[in-house]
C-alpha cells in the first residue's frame, strides 16, 4: 500500500504579517470603467461627478475605511449608526495597524515614482506638492531609496501631450488638467494611456502595501524576500501577450527586494486565495522560506456603482484604490497557521447550485479535518461595503452570502432555522471593503484575523474568495477557494 502522509496543523506555514492600504483617488473616479462609459456623451463629466466626490478628510473618517486599515473593529462598525457616510469618525487617523489611507496628491507622486518609462507627466504645481508630501512620508519618503518624483510640466506642455501625442488627460475634481498619461505604443490597444494608468495604479498600490509590510517592527528584510506573488487584477502585457504579467517582479523591484523573483496568479477575484494557498505550498515544500503575496487596486472599478450614489444624492464611496501584502513564512511558533489540509475548492464538477458550492467551500474541507462550521469563530467572505452596492440595486452581498452559509448550517443540523440571524451576527461581519473586486473578496479581514488569532480571542477563522470566471466568456463556471487560519498550535487553543 502507498504510504499516506497526513498533514497536521503542526509545521504549517504561517501568516507572519499583513498590510492593507487605501489611496484616495477622487480625480480618477471619472476614469473608472463605468463612469467612462456612462458619461461619454456628457461634455464635462467631472462637473457632473463633482458634487458627489469626497475630499480626503471625508474618505479618511469614513468608518468602513477605518476598519480596512485596522483602526476600528468589525463589531464596532456593526454597532455604528448608518448611513456610515453621514456618521464620520471625527479625527480618525490616516495610519492604522494595517496600513494607511493615502491622500490623492501623494498618490499622484507615488504613481509618478512608480513609472519607469516617464509616461505619466504631472502638472508642475501638483508635482511639487506631491514630491514634498511624499518625501515626508514615514515609509515611502525621500530616504526610502525609491525613485524621485520628477518635475512637472506646464499646462501648455501637458495639453500638447494630449492633443498631439494621444495622451490620456487626467482632470482634477476642479476640472483642471492635473496630468497626462502617454500611450506606450502608437498601435497597441493594450498599451493605451488608459490601460497603462490602470496598470500603474495597480503596481503603485501593491508597492505601497509591500513597503508597509517591510516597515513593520521585526519584518523580513527586503533583501531576504526571495519570491513575490502578485494577484492584482490587471493583465499587464502587450498586443502579442495581453496578460503577459509579472507585476510581482515590478513591485518587488520598486520595494527594493533585490534578490526576489516572482510571478502573477490570475483567477478573477479568487486570485488572492489561490496565491495564498500557493505561497503556503511553496513554504511547506521547503522551496521557499518566505513568500510575499501582493495585490494593487483596480482603477477600472472606481465609481463602478456611481449611478446609484448620484441617484441617492450621496457621496461616491468607491473613490479609493486598495492594496495589500501578506508575508507567508515557515512556522515561527507565534503567527496563525495556514492549514493546507483544510483547503476548500470549487472543482470543475462542483456545479453552480448554491448549496453545492457552499459545501465544497466550507463544510467539506472542515469535515476533512474533523471540524464543523461551528468550530470557526469568524468567516470572511465577500466583504463589499453595502453602502456602495445597495444604492445601485446590487444588494448587500456580504449579508446574502452569510445567510446562505447559515442556511448550510441549518441543513447540516448544526443550528436551528431560527438561529440564522445569530449565526450571521456572531460569525459574520458587515461589509466594509471598497468594491475593489479581488481585494474585497475576503482579504480585508486578514489584518483583524491575524491580530485576533495572535493577541485576541480568536481560535479559527475561515476565508473564502469567489471569482466570476464566466465574465471572461471561456467557461460558464465560477471559481471559489477557501482557507482556514488557526491560532498557532504552539500557543494553544483559547
Amino acid at each position, binding site marked *: 500500500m502507498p504510504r499516506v502522509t497526513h498533514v497536521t496543523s503542526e509545521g504549517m506555514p504561517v501568516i507572519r504579517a499583513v498590510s492593507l492600504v487605501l489611496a484616495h483617488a477622487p480625480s480618477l473616479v471619472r476614469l473608472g470603467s463605468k463612469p467612462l462609459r456612462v458619461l461619454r456623451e456628457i461634455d464635462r463629466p467631472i462637473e457632473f461627478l463633482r458634487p458627489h466626490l469626497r475630499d480626503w478628510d471625508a474618505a479618511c473618517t469614513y468608518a468602513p475605511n477605518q476598519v480596512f486599515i485596522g483602526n476600528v473593529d468589525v463589531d464596532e462598525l456593526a454597532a455604528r449608526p448608518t448611513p456610515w457616510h453621514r456618521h464620520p469618525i471625527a479625527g480618525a487617523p490616516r495610519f492604522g495597524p494595517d496600513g494607511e489611507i493615502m491622500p490623492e496628491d501623494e498618490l499622484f507622486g507615488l504613481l509618478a515614482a512608480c513609472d519607469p518609462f516617464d509616461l505619466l507627466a504631472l502638472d508642475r504645481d501638483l508635482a511639487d506638492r506631491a514630491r514634498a508630501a511624499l518625501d515626508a512620508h514615514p515609509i515611502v519618503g525621500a530616504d526610502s531609496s525609491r525613485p524621485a518624483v520628477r518635475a512637472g510640466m506646464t499646462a501648455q506642455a501637458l495639453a500638447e501631450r494630449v492633443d498631439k501625442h494621444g495622451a490620456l488627460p487626467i482632470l482634477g475634481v476642479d476640472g483642471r488638467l492635473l496630468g497626462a498619461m502617454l500611450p506606450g505604443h502608437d498601435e497597441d490597444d493594450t498599451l493605451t494611456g488608459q490601460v497603462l494608468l490602470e496598470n500603474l495604479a495597480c503596481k503603485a498600490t501593491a508597492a505601497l502595501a509591500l513597503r508597509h509590510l517591510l516597515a513593520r517592527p521585526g519584518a523580513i528584510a527586503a533583501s531576504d524576500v526571495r519570491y513575490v506573488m502578485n494577484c492584482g487584477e490587471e493583465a499587464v502585457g502587450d498586443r502579442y501577450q495581453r496578460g503577459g504579467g509579472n507585476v510581482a517582479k515590478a513591485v518587488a523591484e520598486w520595494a527594493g527586494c533585490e534578490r526576489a523573483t516572482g510571478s502573477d496568479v490570475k483567477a478573477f*477575484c479568487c486570485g488572492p486565495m489561490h496565491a495564498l494557498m500557493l505561497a503556503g505550498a511553496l513554504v511547506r515544500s521547503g522551496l521557499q522560506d518566505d513568500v510575499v503575496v501582493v495585490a494593487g487596486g483596480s482603477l477600472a472599478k472606481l465609481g463602478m456603482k456611481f449611478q446609484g450614489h448620484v441617484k441617492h444624492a450621496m457621496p461616491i464611496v468607491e473613490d479609493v484604490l486598495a492594496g495589500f501584502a501578506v508575508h507567508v513564512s515557515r512556522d515561527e511558533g507565534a503567527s496563525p497557521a495556514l492549514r493546507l489540509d483544510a483547503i476548500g475548492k470549487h472543482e470543475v464538477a462542483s*456545479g*453552480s*447550485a*448554491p448549496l453545492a458550492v457552499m459545501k465544497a467551500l466550507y463544510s467539506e474541507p472542515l469535515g476533512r479535518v474533523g471540524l464543523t462550521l461551528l468550530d470557526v469563530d469568524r468567516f470572511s467572505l*465577500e466583504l*463589499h461595503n453595502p453602502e456602495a*452596492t445597495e444604492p*445601485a440595486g*446590487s*444588494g448587500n*452581498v456580504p449579508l*446574502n*452570502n452569510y445567510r446562505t452559509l447559515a442556511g448550510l448550517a441549518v441543513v447540516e443540523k448544526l443550528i436551528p432555522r431560527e438561529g440564522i440571524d445569530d449565526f450571521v451576527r456572531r460569525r459574520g461581519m458587515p461589509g466594509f471593503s471598497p*468594491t475593489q*473586486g479581488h481585494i*474585497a473578496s475576503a482579504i480585508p479581514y486578514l489584518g483583524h484575523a491575524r491580530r485576533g488569532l495572535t493577541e485576541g480571542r480568536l481560535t479559527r477563522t475561515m476565508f473564502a474568495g*469567489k471569482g*466570476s470566471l*464566466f*465574465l471572461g466568456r471561456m467557461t*460558464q*463556471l*465560477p471559481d471559489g477557494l477557501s482557507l482556514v487560519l488557526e491560532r498557532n498550535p504552539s500557543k494553544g487553543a483559547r
Partner: protein
Amino acid sequence: MDLRGKKVIALGERDGVPGPAVAECASRAGADVVLTLTACYV
C-alpha cells in the same frame, strides 16, 4: 408555470442562483434554453 416547449434565457447571479443552475432547472422542466448568462454585481 409550464415551460415545456418554451424557449428560455437563463439569467443568474453569482451571489444568488447562477445562470447554469437556472438553466438546469428550466431544461429539466422541458424548456429549450437558448442562452445562459451569469451576472456579477461586484
